[in-house]
Each structure stands twice: as structure tokens, then as C-alpha cells.
């Protein structure tokens, strides 16, 4: 009986913890520049999966010319991107154990190889002490895909780049 109750509680936790699962996948390509032990520049590029891209491009590229003009870009920002603030833009930055609030600038939507691309900058000068950067949708509706090769890191000793990528982004 105890065993049954334990397993049922586990099932409830699983159900509550993740009631959803990814249907959209985003490849995350961050470029990070470090200067004087602070992040001087953090540029993030999201590449949406082909199926989701096609669905969104059909809707958002109103003149169907294969690129987004200024008004289309503004529309995407207002209606699709800025609302992701509630999900903290699928990012979590910890600097010296303190949570850093995300404030993306220079948002740009584009199309390349039939894929929808969002790019933006995080301009805050974040201290790199105990820096941890995570890309994750806590609701698990979007799968954020990050590989070590996707990360570009500069401003540090070249021999330490690979080690820092693992340390900061938790990738192997």
C-alpha cells in the first residue's frame, strides 16, 4: 500500500511539474564578449525549427517577399516577442548567485534557409563572477537547443574558452 501511495504521489508530481512538452524547437546561438570581468556584449540568436518557421513566416511575412520590413518587424516584436517577458525570454542569468533581469534590445526578425530567426542583445554589464546562463522554457512548450559549438566566446584566454563554455552554459 505504501508503495502504491508513493508511486501515485510521484505521478502527481510529474503531472504538475511538466504538464506540457516541446512542440517548437529553438536553436540558441549566443555570442558573448567579456571585458574587465564583465559581459561587454551578449548577442543572442534564436533559430526556430522548420515547421514552426513555415507556419509563422506564412502569417508574418505579409508581402511574402522572404524578408521582414520595418513594420513587420515591429509587429513581430509587439505581438510575438515582447510577450515572452513572462517567460523571461526563456533565459536565466545568475551572476554571483543573483538573478539578473533580462532586458533585450535591438530585436530583429529575419528569414534564412526557410527558417525564422530572432536576434537581440542583452546590453547590461553583468559581472562574470560565478556566471551561469541557462536557456530554458520552464513550461517545456518550447525546446531550447544549445550545443557547445553554438557558443561564441571572446575576450578571455583562448585556452580557457572551452572550460568557460561548460562552466557558464552547463554544456558538455
Amino acid at each position: 500500500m505504501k508503495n502504491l501511495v508513493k508511486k501515485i504521489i510521484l505521478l502527481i508530481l510529474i503531472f504538475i511539474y511538466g504538464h506540457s512538452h516541446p512542440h517548437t524547437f529553438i536553436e540558441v546561438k549566443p555570442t558573448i564578449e567579456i571585458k574587465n570581468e564583465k559581459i561587454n556584449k551578449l548577442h543572442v540568436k534564436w533559430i526556430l525549427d522548420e515547421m514552426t518557421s513555415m507556419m509563422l513566416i506564412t502569417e508574418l511575412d505579409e508581402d511574402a517577399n522572404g524578408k521582414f520590413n520595418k513594420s513587420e518587424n515591429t509587429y513581430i516584436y509587439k505581438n510575438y516577442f515582447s510577450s515572452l517577458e513572462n517567460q523571461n525570454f526563456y533565459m536565466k542569468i545568475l551572476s554571483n548567485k543573483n538573478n539578473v533581469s533580462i532586458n533585450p534590445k535591438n530585436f530583429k526578425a529575419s528569414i534564412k534557409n526557410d527558417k525564422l530567426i530572432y536576434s537581440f542583445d542583452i546590453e547590461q554589464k553583468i559581472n562574470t563572477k560565478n556566471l551561469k546562463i541557462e536557456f530554458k522554457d520552464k513550461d517545456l512548450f518550447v525546446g531550447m537547443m544549445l550545443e557547445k559549438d553554438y557558443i561564441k566566446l571572446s575576450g578571455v584566454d583562448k585556452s580557457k574558452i572551452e572550460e568557460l563554455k561548460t562552466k557558464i552554459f552547463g554544456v558538455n
Partner: protein
Amino acid sequence: MNLYEQFINTLVQYQFKINSYISSTIKNINDENMLTSSLLVLGIAFLYGLIHAAGPGHGKALVAFYFSTNKNSYSQAFSLGYLISVIHAISALVLTFGIFFILEKMFRQNFNYYSNITMQISALMIIFVGVYIMLSSYFSRKQKEKGIEKNRSKYGLAFSAGVVPCPGVMTIVLFCIMLKKYLLGVLAAITMSIGMGLTISLVGILSITLNKKTNNFFQNKSFILEIFGGVLILGLGIILLYINTFS
């Protein structure tokens, strides 16, 4: 990263690879490779369904609760698993074709809107099934019509869990519609659902095995366990309704 997170992460990685493979294969279908590529897409869609349903959602918790607390055979686990996946596929096909051809544009926004409505309907139905199981288990604890009532709650459960269309299936169907490969879209939805049905059925079988081990304890008082199952299903329905209404 704990064990559960690692498991989910691995599932996400596989799904990403399969998703990319399906989309590139569908895009590259031409007159020469039509048959082999289409069969390949259907095979991968089956695998995708199998892995996709292993992640959270798809009524697995409901199936697990139901079979953990009701006396059933393994074949009933398969019939419930497949009933859910069939309703899942029909719901996804109707909604995708409906939104695309009737409402024509703003698929994404309409999709989110209707998806939320179906979630709320599903949650209300799950609450109803939970209450029904509790009441019927209590009032029919001694009598013979139990078999019929059990089937009713099973169908109710299958419909409640299946009516929420799977966005994964919808995405593939929509992708095929946009590329004007309508038949492939329908077939991919069916094969993906067969894969999902298998995973959901396996959860049911595991729960029945678990239930058999605890049967000795309850012997003639199995209705207590059934009522407990009803309470759990009711609880899940309330959580789902809350999530889809207030958050």
C-alpha cells in the same frame, strides 16, 4: 540536473532531431522518391509519436491513476491507450483543417485560442469522470452492473484526455497542408498517433501490474481503491482547469 530533468532533456534532444528529419524529408519529396520518402516519413512519425508521448502530458497520468485503482486486463490498457490516441488524432486533424481552411489565416493565434478552449473542456470532463467514478464505485460496490459502468467511465476518460489535440500532430499536419501534401499529412497524423497510443498503453500496463501487487491488500474492498482513483482524477481535472483558466 536531476534524473528526471536528464530524462526529459534526452527526450527533447531526440524529438528535435526527429522533428528536423521529418521536415527536411517532407520538403524533399518529389515524383521520383515519392513512395520511399513518404513511407520513411510515416515510419519516423510513428517513432516521433512513441517518444513524444513519453514526455509529460497526453493523459498518461489519468491512465496511470485509472489502472492503478481499477481491476482491468492488459488488453483493456491497450484499448484505452489507443482510444485516447485515436481521439487525439481526430481532434488534431479536425482542428488543423478547420482553422486552416475555414478561418484561413492567423493560424497561430487561432490555434492558441482553440487549444485553450479544448483544454478547459477536457479539464471539466476529467472532473466529471472523477466524480462519476467515485459515485459509481460507491453505489455499485455490491452489484452486478459494474462492468457496464466501468466501460462508461473508460470511454469518458478516453474522450476527456484525447479531446485536447496534440500540437505536435497539428504542426506536422499543417506543414503538410502548406506543402499541399494533404494525404501524407493525414497519414502522418495517424501513424504518429499509433506511436503515442503504444506509449500510453504501456503506462496502463505498468499501472495494472502495480495494481495487481496491491490487490491482496484490498481483496473484497476494491471499491475503496476505485474511489481513491476517482478522487485523484478529480484532483487532476481541477489542477488542469486552474492552469488553463487562471495562468
